């Protein structure tokens, strides 16, 4: 099992890294929403799914040039995220957290059923964007251009996001709101607006993730978001939910480990999807709030 060549290993690592970057883009959305609302946004994976359909419609059906289409996809997805927040989460601001969670489950249910009616359950094939699916050779390693673009895209967006959160006024408002709504309000922060911005950014990142995901797995159906959504959520939890850098580390770790497992133990490839959960549970047992999560102590 330990006989392999270096190019083989690099090839697999490149694959793992691509998947990891995709996970990261979606995981950030989960972690940001959790950080500010303490809500597992079960609808995030369906926002991801809707985004894939938007892309299909803009490029394949309306045949727009792909750069224009991409901008429209990101805008439409961000809008969808904000609308969901306004309609389903804002009315429950003062409600117990469990109501919020159930509302998220309800939205997820609604979006999946809506997609089945609007787009039918027949799988659609995802359009190729630019030359991302083209294969290139670097030394002896043959990878799709995607494997180069995805990490670059992820790093650029991550740096931009960290800048937004740490250096701008909006980011400061986000950080304040994630500590305490009441105090943030007293400091003159518009909490509702801040939460909207969080959903906007998280959904936009999910849209970017969805487009790249579609290049690797070009099939769309109403439940396409469920598995990647779960994995990204797991990645966010592994990293310590609420922590953006943690989400990225968790996502990259999950992506690479998953690919390496399937590569080295191909007999276990049927258990690939279970593997993510096993890592998750193993980590939660030893670090109940994830790798970089804050530890909460209940006070009486």
């Amino acid at each position, binding site marked *: 099992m330990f006989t392999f060549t270096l190019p083989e290993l690099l090839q697999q690592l490149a694959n793992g890294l691509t998947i990891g970057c995709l996970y990261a883009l979606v995981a950030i959305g989960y972690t940001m929403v959790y950080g500010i609302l303490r809500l597992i946004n079960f609808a995030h994976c369906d926002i991801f799914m809707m985004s894939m359909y938007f892309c299909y419609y803009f490029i394949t059906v309306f045949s727009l040039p792909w750069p224009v289409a991409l901008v429209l996809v990101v805008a439409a997805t961000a809008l969808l995220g904000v609308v969901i927040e306004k309609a389903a989460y804002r009315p429950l601001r003062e409600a117990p957290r469990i109501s919020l969670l*159930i509302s998220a489950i309800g939205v997820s249910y609604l979006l999946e059923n809506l997609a089945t009616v609007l787009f039918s359950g027949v799988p659609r094939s995802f359009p190729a964007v630019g030359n991302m699916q083209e294969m290139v050779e670097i030394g002896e390693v043959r990878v799709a251009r995607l494997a180069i673009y995805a990490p670059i895209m992820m790093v650029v967006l991550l740096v931009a996001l960290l800048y937004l959160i740490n250096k701008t006024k909006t980011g400061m408002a986000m950080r304040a709101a994630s500590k305490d709504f009441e105090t943030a309000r007293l400091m003159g922060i518009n909490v509702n607006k801040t939460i909207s911005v969080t959903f906007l950014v998280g959904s936009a990142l999910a849209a970017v993730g969805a487009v790249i995901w579609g290049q690797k797995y070009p099939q769309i159906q109403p439940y396409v978001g469920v598995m990647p959504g779960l994995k990204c959520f797991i990645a966010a939890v592994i990293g310590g939910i609420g922590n953006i850098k943690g989400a990225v580390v968790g996502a990259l770790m999950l992506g690479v480990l998953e690919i390496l497992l399937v590569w080295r133990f191909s007999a276990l490839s049927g258990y690939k999807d279970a593997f993510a959960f096993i890592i998750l*549970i193993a980590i939660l047992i030893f670090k*109940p709030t994830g790798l970089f999560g804050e530890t909460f102590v209940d006070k009486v």
Partner: protein
Amino acid sequence: MKGNKRDFWLTVIVLTLFAALVILTQTGAVAFIDSYQIHILNLCAIYTILGLSMNLVNGFTGLFSLGQAGFMAIGAYVTALLIMAPDVKEQVFYVEPIEPWLGALQCPFWLALLAGGMLSAVVAFFIGFPVLRLRGDYLAIATLGFAEIIRIIFLNTQTLTNGSMGVKSIPPTANLLWCFGIAALMVLFMLRLIHSSYGRAFKAIRDDEIAAEAMGINLFKHKMYSFILSAFIAGVGGGLMASVVSAITPNLFRFTLAYDILLIVVLGGMGSITGTVVAAFVITAAKEWLRWLDEGFSIGPLTVPEIPGLRMVIFSVLLMGIILFYRQGFFGSKEFSWHGLFAFVRELPRRIGRLFHRDKKEAA
């Protein structure tokens, strides 16, 4: 205690009438519903059982567990494989033969249900050790994860579960009598449990863990009891479901199945047994009743063509409405009582009167 005596006899009379109705329908003495409606009623009863199982953990003990689908899968597969005849199993497992010992095993329905429930409970016991130390959302995700792991294992164990092709031709032993009998048994069991010292301990844990611990309640032990019992009930429910639907695949038990059950619990009211029973019937029946939406219909001049899936969209919109504007569900954490019913009926004219009275005031 005149009221208690009256309530007792009312309960006995209503239950006897109900049991008689079920038995008569089952034996075909009164044929006022067809086999399709019987199927739906069976599902209603099964969802009642599943709802109770989830309400025990989520509503009464305050543990947000989403692992119900996994426990149902265990119960369903164990029951299915134990009640099928050996030669039928041989036919169903045509890709890879079934393990010989499992192929030869056959037992009566009640024993198979019990075995399914027991195995679920045993699995819950082992899952409980790592999982019940987690809190809130982390617990939800870990239990959901275990449910998915169980499903994925079932997808891959070809010689035990027939993998993704699932198990077909399960004998339809579960009839109205079985489903309603077990559902009634579970309701009685839950009522007894909730009013026992264990039930009080569960509720204390739900309301405040630290206070409960200070009162001398062993948190982990009681959470474990609740979790195991819930898994047992879910396993039995899964077993009944396997027999009612007659074909099961691992993908039937996706974690989203837990959402369906959760919606029943929430709609009925977290922590209300009455609520769960009512909501299980309302939701299961409503899903079927809304079927006309899929087939196309017309409202006045407006004609809506056939749109498959519209039913589920309307259903989810209704659910969202309830979640957003009617958060307590039908019953909150209240239970049905004869006293409450009589008081409600007595109050009814006055309530309606008040309604009109207010209208007049507003008009003026």
